[in-house]
């Protein structure tokens, strides 16, 4: 029976916390990318121009129907063969952003569709430009109710960052793997990784529940 060695856990904690910074960075940057890309894809799908709406739709459907891990491998191992060489972290962030952008685009789409037709019509009657309609009338109403759904994807993305270990990014899980293989002690590093993930995702989930209560959506 292996017992939990508190002293060892304490010893490796700083290394894991350091790696957690990478995890958080990947989540924040990846999600910022996903949030912007999702909006662009949602707007693209609504476009009346077929050569914008069709590719946007195709990207969303394709990306949503393929595993993130395969996408990450493709970006990391296949693209360099065509001369696209990017650091592992950048590839990871692009992969996360692309994958979750295709999900958030559906959130945006539903949120925009939920705005009453009368809002568009009033904006037309007041002669607002297309840009003003979107940025000042429609999106400011559509986005707040989307926040819980976007938040859920943020937490989901955070919990999927260990996949970046597969393309050599030394985030928290990869660091735990390295520690475990060097010390032959898997219990403490993996337990700590689990605890650290929990410590961040659980309060986030609670926060999202409060947002949901506030906006009355699920």
């Amino acid at each position: 029976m292996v017992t939990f060695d508190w002293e060892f856990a304490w010893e490796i904690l700083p290394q894991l916390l350091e790696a957690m910074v990478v995890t958080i960075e990947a989540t924040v940057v990846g999600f910022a990318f996903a949030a912007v890309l999702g909006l662009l894809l949602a707007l693209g799908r609504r476009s009346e121009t077929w050569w914008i709406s069709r590719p946007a739709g195709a990207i969303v459907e394709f990306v949503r129907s393929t595993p993130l891990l395969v996408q990450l491998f493709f970006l990391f191992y296949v693209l360099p063969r065509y001369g696209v060489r990017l650091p592992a972290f950048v590839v990871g962030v692009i992969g996360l952003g692309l994958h979750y952008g295709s999900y958030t685009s559906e959130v945006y789409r539903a949120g925009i569709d939920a705005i009453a037709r009368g809002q568009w019509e009033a904006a037309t009657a007041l002669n607002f430009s297309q840009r003003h309609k979107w940025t000042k009338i429609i999106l400011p109403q559509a986005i707040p109710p989307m926040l819980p759904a976007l938040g859920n994807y943020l937490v989901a993305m955070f919990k999927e960052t260990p996949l970046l270990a597969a393309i050599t990014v030394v985030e928290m899980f990869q660091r735990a793997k390295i520690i475990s293989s060097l010390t032959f002690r898997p219990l403490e590093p993996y337990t700590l990784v689990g605890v650290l993930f929990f410590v961040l995702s659980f309060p986030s989930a609670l926060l999202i529940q409060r947002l949901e209560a506030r906006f009355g959506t699920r």
Partner: protein
Amino acid sequence: MVQDNDRQDASGPMIRFQKVKKSFGDVHVLRELDLDVATAERISIIGASGSGKTTLLRILMTLEEPNSGVIYVDGEPLWHKKVNGELVEADEKHLRKMRGKIGMVFQQFNLFPHMKVLRNVTEAPIHVLGTPRDKAEARAKELLDMVGLADKMDNYPSQLSGGQQQRVAIARALAMQPKVMLFDEITAALDPELVGEVLGVMRQLAHETQMTMLIVTHEMGFARDVSHRIVFLHEGQVLEEGPPEKIFTNPDHPRTREFLSRVLEH
């Protein structure tokens, strides 16, 4: 393309519908509708539901595109643009120019819920007309005062009653200083006890301004009081029109009589 035979000039009507057709699928809502509205004229459009009243306004506001026919507003084609003397389909730029002449108040108010009352009224003057903020706010306060809501300018629409929201919507449309105002059943969504305050504002507006107004309403007493002319629509055409005294007391057409007897019973 349509030949532009009927050139409009300053002395022409403010609004002219020429053989305007609109259908939704198999439902023909407007059937070659012809209608002129003079400058500063106030007309009320009445008729059974489905007769095309609302569609007529929505086409004028460019919310629906007609299938055929030509509409002139202030001497210029609305849904077309003149290129070398011929009418071709209007582009967004032309539509935006034409929309500047027209304002609309909706049945469902359609205030922007995320903006306070004052900003609902100033947003378009500032960002569409380019009015400086201080001037736009001063004007908005005047208008809100006129509709009796000067004390509500820092409230959100959701904090107002339906009647108050509709009065803000009227102020918001007026703030754009349109030449033509369209009122689409603006009391239909209100609780009965709130109808009076909105009609009161409308009566005042009718007496104080020289704006051309097209009013779609089921409030016959109101229509009679404020309109120069009543237009009775039936199955997408103008079946009968005339001064209120005539239409409401001695209409020529049996359909008009039938319609009025039904609505005046209530």
